[in-house]
């Protein structure tokens, strides 16, 4: 027990040292990409929060800036994903009469689902992604998708299997909201 709390203490201490040393620099780095100081400050906090939650052995990190930017880049990608999805959603809504708008709760649910889906499919190729969305969201048959994309049904089947695999594998890659950094593994 003592060993664990010692370790936690060490993590806390080195995290605060890391924060003091690199917080300003990281926020500038993020601001260059976001052009928005508020968002940059938020994501800076999120980056350190991620470290805290994941209890990394921070003392071992040799190149703290590379380490921090790797994590920040992941958060940045999530941030952009969420923003793009929310903007496109709002656009679609604006083009429809207000009476057809779903309730705020339903919208929130849909937006969360979309962010998750996009996160899971983001490594997939353009065609496979399109095939899967046609299949799953538009309910199109394989022959219809094949005609649409001008490929064979066999290719469509492979694309859909690939997309499904993205979803199936993802369940083993949680924790939620984090992805894609080699430094974290």
């Amino acid at each position, binding site marked *: 027990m003592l060993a664990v709390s010692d370790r936690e203490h060490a993590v806390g201490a080195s995290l605060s040292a890391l924060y003091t040393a690199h917080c300003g620099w990281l926020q500038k780095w993020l601001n260059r990409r976001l052009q928005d100081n508020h968002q940059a400050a938020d994501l800076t906090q999120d980056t350190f929060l991620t470290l805290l939650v994941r209890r990394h052995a921070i003392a071992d990190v040799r190149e703290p800036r590379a380490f921090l930017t790797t994590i920040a880049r992941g958060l940045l*990608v999530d941030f*952009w*994903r969420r*923003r*793009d*999805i*929310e*903007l*496109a*959603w709002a*656009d*679609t*809504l604006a*083009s*429809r*009469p207000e009476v*057809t708008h*779903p309730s705020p709760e*339903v919208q929130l*649910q*849909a*937006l969360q*689902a*979309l962010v*998750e*889906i*996009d996160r899971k*499919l*983001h490594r997939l190729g*353009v065609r496979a*992604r*399109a095939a899967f*969305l*046609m*299949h*799953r*969201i*538009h*309910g*199109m*048959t*394989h022959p219809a998708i094949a005609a*649409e*994309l001008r490929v064979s*049904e066999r290719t*469509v*089947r*492979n694309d*859909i*299997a*690939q997309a*499904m*695999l993205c*979803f*199936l*594998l993802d*369940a*083993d890659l*949680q924790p939620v909201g984090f992805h894609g950094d080699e430094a974290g593994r």
Partner: protein
Amino acid sequence: MGAAAVDPRILEAAAHWYALLSSGAASEQERARWQAWMDADNAHRRAWQRVEDVGAQFDALIAQPMGREASVASLNAAAQGRRERRRLLTVALIAGATGLLGLGVAQSPAGRRTWAAWQADLVTPVGGSKESRLADGTQIRLNTDTAVKVDYTRDQRRLVLLRGEIMIATAADPDRTFVVDTPEGRLQALGTRFNVRSLDGETTLAVLEGAVQAHFAGAPPAGVRVDAGMRMRGGSQGIDAPATLRADDHNWTRGIVQFEEAPLAQVVAELARYRRGHLGCASDVADLRVTGTFPLHDSDRALRLLSEALPVRISQPLPWWTTLQPR
């Protein structure tokens, strides 16, 4: 890590089974092999459970009106934004490949469908139906999965049927003509009640009262007059001469569909228009004859009725995947 990690090779097998089963091309032997695979190992079952869980993630999107269009739009925007940012980061490297999805989607028929719904003023989801009164008092009723653009000007009242099916009862207006445009042609109302269906590259006009002047590609330029009690079809397959109206041209407004000695495949195709997800039937039973009246907005009940009257059973390997199989 998730609660119970599954060997990636097993997940890959599950993904391929899913793709095969969802293709509709799986043979009986392949289905049996899938069942055997499921029974062989608990890990296989767990992997398949994940496949089923994926379906649930999409339910929140498809369940609501405008869900499908808004969802695809949002996902495309995210992919597009990602590509654009990547381009900014590595300017020259992939400059040529950006925007492909956006363009591709805008140009493909499914994409046009998506864009189409964005322009629409009146929209119904799959299984939906709605009635509306336009500015001039014209009554319009939309059937399932329909999108209509309303384009009224000083000189003309114009509706664009982007997809789906509508029933119209026009209000009188001596100064302005009333037309419905579909991808296949223009229908000009001559004081009237009529039904227009635009489906699979074909427009079907059915006139209940008054008359409609129909202008289809390949028809005389002056158009063809279709009187009350008559129907006419036009589209990529050419045009048919006006013929006697059929009950199934307008039965949908009563929420029912009637068949007389119709092949099961046709019945299933009609019911599928009103149902989310896939609905199909096995080729062995496609030619069974069906006579009867079915509810349009309760396709589960319609399917139960079919499975009681015919030697077929309802197979639902995935929540949104339904086929009629020989019993």
